[in-house]
């Protein structure tokens, strides 16, 4: 089995997995970073969203073999203390219901806001449309993205 050296949350890590192993399962099963969630495995729900070189990507659909020299950030590495403005906004607005989708929502929102810190409501909806929340906490997610934007400026 090939060996991969990857940089996750600023830390260089080595794993032995088959080349088609999705980053999601490397994170969850090999590296014990279980904050990134499995929802569908086919890029449809966004529960597995991480940042790869700052861009929100679906870790379930990203094989380990393509991320060699890239920087991966997961929910565990978004901030050291849970105080990223998006996390703070999520807490303030009390977004989660079951909470399972929320790591993915936060990762999508934080990558989006890094590129557009004063989004319109329409832009927020477009940015978050790919992340399913089965509990349908969409009103809160929308509000939290707005609140986070105010914290970023």
């Amino acid at each position: 089995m090939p060996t991969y050296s990857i940089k996750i949350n600023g830390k260089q890590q080595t794993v032995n997995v088959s080349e088609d192993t999705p980053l999601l399962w490397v994170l969850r099963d090999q590296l014990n970073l279980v904050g990134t969630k499995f929802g569908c495995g086919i890029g449809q729900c966004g529960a597995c969203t991480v940042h790869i070189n700052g861009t929100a990507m679906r870790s379930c659909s990203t094989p380990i073999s393509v991320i060699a020299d890239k920087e991966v950030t997961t929910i565990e590495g978004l901030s050291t203390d849970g105080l990223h403005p998006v996390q703070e906004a999520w807490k303030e607005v009390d977004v989660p219901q079951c909470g399972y989708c929320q790591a993915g929502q936060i990762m999508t929102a934080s990558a989006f806001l890094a590129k557009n810190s004063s989004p319109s409501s329409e832009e927020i909806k477009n940015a978050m449309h790919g992340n399913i929340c089965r509990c349908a906490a969409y009103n809160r997610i929308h509000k939290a993205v707005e609140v986070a934007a105010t914290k970023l400026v």
Partner: protein
Amino acid sequence: MSDKKITFSRRNFIRTSSLASGGLLIGFNLFNSCKPNAKAPVDLADLDYKDFNAYIKIAENGAVTLFSPNPEIGQGVKTAMPMLIAEELDVAWSNVNVVQGDLDTVNYQRQVAGGSQSIRLGWEPLRQTGATARQMLVNAAAARWGVDPSSCTTKNGVITNANGDTLGYGEVVTEAAALDVPENVSLKHPKDFTIIGTDAVNVDIDKIITGKPLYGIDYKADGMLYAAVVRSPAFGKKLVSFDASEAKASGNVIDIIEFDNKIAVLAKDTWSAFKAKKTIKAEWSIDTPLESTEDHDKILKKLLQDKEAKVLREDGNVDKAFAEADKILERIYEAPFLPHNCMEPMNFYANVTADKIHLVGPIQTPQRTATTIASNLGRKPDEVHLEMTRMGGGFGRRLYGDFAIEAATISNLAKKPIKVVYSREDDMTAGIYRPASKYKIKAAIKNGKITGYHLREAAVNGNMYGLIPNFFPAGAIENYKVDAANYQSKVTTGAWRAPYTNFLAFAEQSFFDELADELNVDRVQMRLDLLQKVKGTTDEKIEYSPERLENVIKLAVDKSNWGKTTANIYQGFSAYYCHNSHVAEVADVEVVNGQPVVKKVTCVIDCGIVVNPIGAENQAQGGVVDGIGHAMYGDFAFNKGVPSSKNFDTYRLIRMKEAPVVETHFVQNTLAPTGLGEPTLPPAGAAVANALKAVTGHRFTQQPFTKNPEHLKVQKKEIIG
């Protein structure tokens, strides 16, 4: 409404101990008395839930910790229930910490009811417990001061006597532990509440937003293998043989286990298990005729037309009313099967060893599941140790322990610790679905009045539970009948968020809208007029309160600007009672780029006193959006036993852009809290359908509404008028 007060024995439901490490421990039971010999442990390491179903620890520094094995499925009860204790205990909410305990044994007294009913059932007992603990602390302080306990007051964990001397709770915990448990304590008047009715964010929020392990799927144990299971590709097929040679040859696969008509692949990691599973070639025989949705449709339609069905409620003489009617309105409403699609796929950990069965995972029925597993494996119930995790959604699916039973069976055969993990495909195709159902509703009209009403239910595998026939409009129409029939299918079905009412409310509230048109009366006024007839009813069976339903309807009219909106907004109305709560909703649909779009829903809910408003709003909004999502898009069928969708590429769930703004209004009262997780869902579909009628001219009788895109075409303005 009949009196739904929960009675419980106040005596003997609390035991205390002085912790060896310092502090007071209170073990308590919510619904039953303690066993006579039950003792609260003196060491936190010995907490078990055999004799008590929760514990409160008050430390010497005054910090309060609540230990409870009750899991969270996303309905906020894990936050709301401790608030009730803290309120009566009179401590600052910020000083309260909630720790989820393990469920250690099947002797566990009773699992707090899942979902909507938890807060209703816990309302009195939890407050009683808090108040009793408070009284013990006061008694201890009063004894030290040599004063009458009734001369002392408490606030934020501090006891004050008439002289103004103060003692913190922590300072008297040791003495309190030695005192008898007082029997009669009084509860606060709602006007004195300082925690109930204030916003408390989710107790797990920090862990959720930083990605800490919380859910069953996050659980790991030493030596644990991951199990992916091959199940029958169609309902009604049996495993004949299989070839797993390719799977076995792949590096990380450790074992292949055949059990119960299924094959488990055990691997070192999830991905290897998922991948190897796909290489297994299995032969299946056809056990029974394979069922298709077409067949179900025909059978259910026939059941709707049969002369006889099981009568669930009958008032007056329905046959006579129809025979004498000037006009009869009759409609059929049709709902598909629905998968639950919890965001966290089903999973469970099991380690079956010679001396113990260790189970960990997301389950709403731990006791039943543990008992079944013990009996399946021929073991004693007290050998089972079950730990509940936070759940990534429930919606009814995790009431069923099938996935935990699978895990235990596999571990028992493999003699290894394993965790069964469902792929999304497994989760959607090995479901315990919302049963497909159809309703026929008939109204007899004479002299412009509704004189008769007949609701017939035809559903797969079962029928509405006993209370539903006594919901609105029972009692409002003189000649009234509800009857039901079902068809036993091989497709597994079960509870799905707001069982039965999730679709029945749509059928009935759509029918009422049409009935108002037929009678040429105002649709809201028609409902209010019907409710007048129920006021003062002596019928004990009537479940809802006509006054409370009337009140939410009137408030919804007011808050939604009903009938007074601008020309481009089309409104639909719906009101429903279920799970002991009364809800009215108005949907606002606008035409955007030639398409009807649900922009806003005004939701008025009477669920008694609102314990945690910030959590309650979240639940109510989620219920409405979930209801709209499934009414619009939720479609699931079977073709020769094979499910039509396997994943979210073909199964559509509502997403951000389709979700309306939900404006919630809670009726302010001090009545005992009732269900919140479910009751806002049922009325949502009809509110939208009734608004869509105004825009499209089409009267929706089938879900999902997107089934025929033609029906969603905006009608020309001049036709709507």
